[in-house]
């Protein structure tokens, strides 16, 4: 059954969309990731215009993170103070990202920007995760292996404007969390992702936050930043397709429930290595498209004199 998407202005099979939402949902449930970084490239592959894919995905992330953050608020695993600092950075970053996005759209280079961002970030995260989980598996098989110690103090602790974050038990400068927030905001605007895959490692390794508050706090920041991004895309580009978002979401929510149940039955190291392989595969496909001569050298953009 085909459905005509009013904003994307293409006709797509409704079950394909529900299925895509479902598959990405299963994966995000299994691995505990947002899934935006998988969904947006998949939307490109099925022919949704990149600008619509990015904006709509931002809308979808708000909704899929919403129930997650409620659960974390109930368990009091959200550092609201840290979340707010990250959020301020995120809003600034999102604004910057949209400006860059619209500027490059006028130049006809926005697809390149989005693809390059994906290749770089997916490549980095994918290989880091792959190596880390390989090492973890190797350590697990060698019982005598020592666990590397994390440095407690690094350059982060020598910056000015210190602030107390009670829930996280930290007394650090606000500059690093602001910077992390800005970076995540830019990525949300350009790539249509929540940015959890950047923020979570940054919070653990760079800011030294305790793992139990990391996910809730990042979800808290993601909701507001993606909501802001959605509004910016909706008001400047008119590219948020609510029909597309709802279809992906319904598939995604159901998929996530199934994925969580599968995830419980699998080993953490195995899960991570599969996630790494998947991330690298998406990255590889995007890189391949950039490197290999395309079948059609020409492409059409909307006219106008921008």
């Amino acid at each position, binding site marked *: 059954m085909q459905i*005509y998407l009013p*904003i994307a202005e293409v*006709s797509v099979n409704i079950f394909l969309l529900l299925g895509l939402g479902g598959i990405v949902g299963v994966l995000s449930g299994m691995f505990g990731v947002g899934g935006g970084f998988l969904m947006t490239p998949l939307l490109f592959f099925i022919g949704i215009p990149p600008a619509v894919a990015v904006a709509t995905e931002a809308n979808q992330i708000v909704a899929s993170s919403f129930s997650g953050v409620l659960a974390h608020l109930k368990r009091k695993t959200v550092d609201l103070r840290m979340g707010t600092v990250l959020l301020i950075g995120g809003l600034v970053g999102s604004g910057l990202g949209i400006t860059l996005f619209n500027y490059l759209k006028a130049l*006809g280079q926005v697809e390149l920007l989005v693809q390059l961002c994906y290749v770089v970030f997916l490549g980095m995260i994918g290989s880091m995760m792959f190596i880390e989980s390989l090492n973890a598996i190797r350590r697990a098989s060698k019982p005598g292996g020592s666990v590397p110690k994390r440095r407690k103090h690094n350059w982060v602790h020598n910056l000015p404007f210190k602030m107390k974050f009670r829930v996280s038990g930290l007394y650090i400068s606000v500059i690093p969390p602001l910077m992390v927030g800005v970076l995540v905001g830019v990525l949300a605007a350009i790539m249509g992702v929540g940015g959890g895959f950047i923020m979570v490692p940054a919070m653990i390794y760079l800011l030294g936050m305790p793992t139990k508050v990391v996910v809730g706090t990042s979800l808290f920041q993601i909701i507001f930043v993606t909501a802001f991004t959605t509004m910016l895309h909706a008001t400047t580009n008119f590219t948020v397709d609510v*029909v597309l978002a709802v279809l992906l979401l319904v598939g995604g929510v*159901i998929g996530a429930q199934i994925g969580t149940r599968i995830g419980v039955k699998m080993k953490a190291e195995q899960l991570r290595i599969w996630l790494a392989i998947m991330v690298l595969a998406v990255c590889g496909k995007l890189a391949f498209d950039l490197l290999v001569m395309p079948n059609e*050298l*020409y492409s059409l953009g*909307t*006219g106008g004199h921008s």
Partner: protein
Amino acid sequence: MIRLVALLLSLALPAKAEEIVLGLSKDEVAITATFDGSEILIFGAIKRDGPVEVPGDLGVIVTIAGPDEPVTVRKKDRRLGIWVNTESVEVDVAPTFYAVATNRPLDEILTPAEDLNTRISMQRAIRSIGATADNAQSFTEALIRIRGSQGLYQTIPEGVSVAEEALFRVLIPLPANLTEGDYVAEIYLTRDKQIIDLYTTTIAVKKVGLERWLYNLAHENPFLYGLMSLSIAIAAGWGASAAFSAFRR
């Protein structure tokens, strides 16, 4: 304008021996939520004062043109090992949809001069006036090729069937990715490669119902639309997870 002149000229012919009488399968195409393309049947008859005594071959040309929109055609080139958009050409006159159907190959029923005046053929209908690049031709060809593969540009030689020099009919498929607007259908009658009659009519293509409403809201009141999208998405996400957990129990 040129078409109007051609029309006036054809009207000014002393005794109009042959005339088109037209029928359309529909004069409106509604884009609904389940819209998956459509087709239009154009049929008609050739009315004559007397028996066929006009010499020369009969030609019937049917064109349908969607609303004009300028389009930027970009070309990729290899830079630093990756393929990026480099050159671009602005095509000023590019209908969002263009189909030309004829009863015989176009060059057998229309002189090049008439084509130049009326801009019937695909190559004439699409032009880039202000293009400065030397190879603007390859850009317009690319436009025709890309839109052709999407079913937006069609040349259907021998698509019009003519019965007994009096009745004609043609079926023109419309793809799913239509742009809204007034589509102009023109039916030309030619004898000896000269146009002797022209009939023009419009077909309205528009989004209806929910599609119409969402599209309008998104463009006229984007702030409200954004808020609505967010709340609908949150409600849908919440609802789906609540429904799923209720179902599990």
